[in-house]
């Protein structure tokens, strides 16, 4: 039995709102999940059940109240996300976990091409040929996601919602990381681009990535899922 790339056991999450009389909202009580390389697990359940929360805990922008989240990159050592230092988490995000959130959040003024190339450029340092290769790869992603070339050198802040979403997908999938977290990546895409994203996800699992995704669109979910998990089962306290 191989070690899962991602393993959650007994994960719980509640939010305490100190400025609203300290009320505590329990979102998740006992989440258990194992995801192996090459799998695409689609999270199901009505909104407000904690699907996005689960992805955010794995990516560590939410803290976990109880339980364990272990990420083991192929051939690497396991990182316990709930205990990792900020520095370890920065490394984990750089090399192991890609996360496509619902919103693009980038520095103003940076052109779309560089926004997409950035994860590759970080590794390139100052080597000119590596920087050039990073930009070339970025232009392939932009072409594939049908971003018109006249937009490549403009900052994405003024782009439409769908264009920004595609920039976000390209930026966070361009580097082939072992674990991919997708939070409604196709929510504002047309049919053709949605189909492209389906292909990109299948290519990621084919190269051995583990994917955990949330898809508003049932057709996308069934096109990419190798397994489905209902997050309602993560709310029982047992």
């Amino acid at each position, binding site marked *: 039995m191989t070690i899962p790339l991602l393993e959650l056991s007994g994960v719980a999450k509640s939010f305490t709102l100190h400025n609203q009389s300290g009320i505590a909202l329990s979102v998740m009580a006992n989440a258990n999940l194992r995801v192996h390389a090459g799998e695409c697990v689609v999270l199901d359940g009505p909104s407000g059940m904690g699907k996005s929360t689960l992805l955010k805990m794995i990516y560590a922008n939410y803290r976990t109240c109880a339980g364990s989240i272990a990420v083991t990159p192929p051939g690497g050592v396991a990182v316990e996300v709930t205990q990792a230092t*900020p520095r370890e988490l920065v490394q984990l995000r750089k090399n192991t976990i890609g996360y496509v959130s619902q919103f693009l959040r980038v520095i103003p003024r940076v052109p779309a091409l560089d926004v997409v190339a950035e994860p590759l450029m970080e590794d390139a340092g100052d080597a000119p040929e590596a920087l050039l290769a990073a930009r070339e790869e970025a232009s392939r992603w932009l072409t594939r996601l049908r971003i018109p070339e006249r937009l490549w050198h403009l900052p994405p802040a003024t782009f439409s919602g769908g264009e920004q979403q595609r920039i976000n997908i390209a930026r966070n999938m361009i580097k082939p990381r072992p674990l991919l977290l997708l939070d409604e990546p196709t929510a504002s895409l047309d049919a053709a681009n949605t189909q492209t994203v389906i292909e990109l996800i299948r290519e990621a699992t084919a190269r051995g990535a583990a994917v955990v995704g949330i898809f508003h669109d049932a057709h996308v979910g069934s096109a990419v899922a190798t397994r489905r998990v209902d997050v309602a089962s993560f709310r029982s306290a047992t």
Partner: protein
Amino acid sequence: MSLSSPLMQVRGVSKRYGERIALQDVSFDLWPGEVLAVVGESGSGKSTLLNAIAARSQPDTGSVQFLTREDGMQDVFGMTEAQQRLLARTDWGFVHQNAADGLRMDVSAGANVGERLMGLGERHYGRLRATASEWLTRVEIDPSRIDDAPRTFSGGMRQRLQIARNLVTEPRLIFMDEPTSGLDVSVQARLLDLLRQLTRKMQLAAVIVTHDLAVARLLAHRMVVMQRGRVVESGLTDQVLDDPQHPYTQLLVSSVLQP
């Protein structure tokens, strides 16, 4: 220089002004290439902390250790004043909120950039001028302005000149006190972009004091939140902003528009 050792270790730093507690028991590590944001409201102790760790004012208790190039970890307050000054103008930089505090306003931009190099013994005019010109370009100031005094520059240009003046000796750590406040939004964006590129390319560690959570989100890997001289919360920047735990941080985050 080892990457497995922090660049700076701050331990139990406290400072009082009479009865008032300005800093209480502040500790953190800063690693090479790491950008740390210090946030909190006015009077929370952010700038006092920055001045204490940059050896600009001595805390009452606590220690600040810095990984020097030659002698490993050294207690900053155990150094002589001459050693502190050398550190401050070679391996450290300090960017003031008000550029006039960090620049010589009536000498040329080129001389402002060259001053640290001259302090280190560089006397060759041609080389000084070439380096100054190169740095003006890097911070996006037209090198034809090299002979103009910063008094004739806009606020954004002055701030970029101050950054060039500090980075010319390729320091490993830069302290910044509200570097983008007081600038127009468009100018601010340009400066943020520049700072991010420079910190990344130069593997520069930075401690940035800011009250602007959006600035912290874009620039910093890590964040500490201060209230009444204490660190009430710390962690990965988006963790602190997206899932704040302390009542004060929750209030801070919920009080701003889209950090």
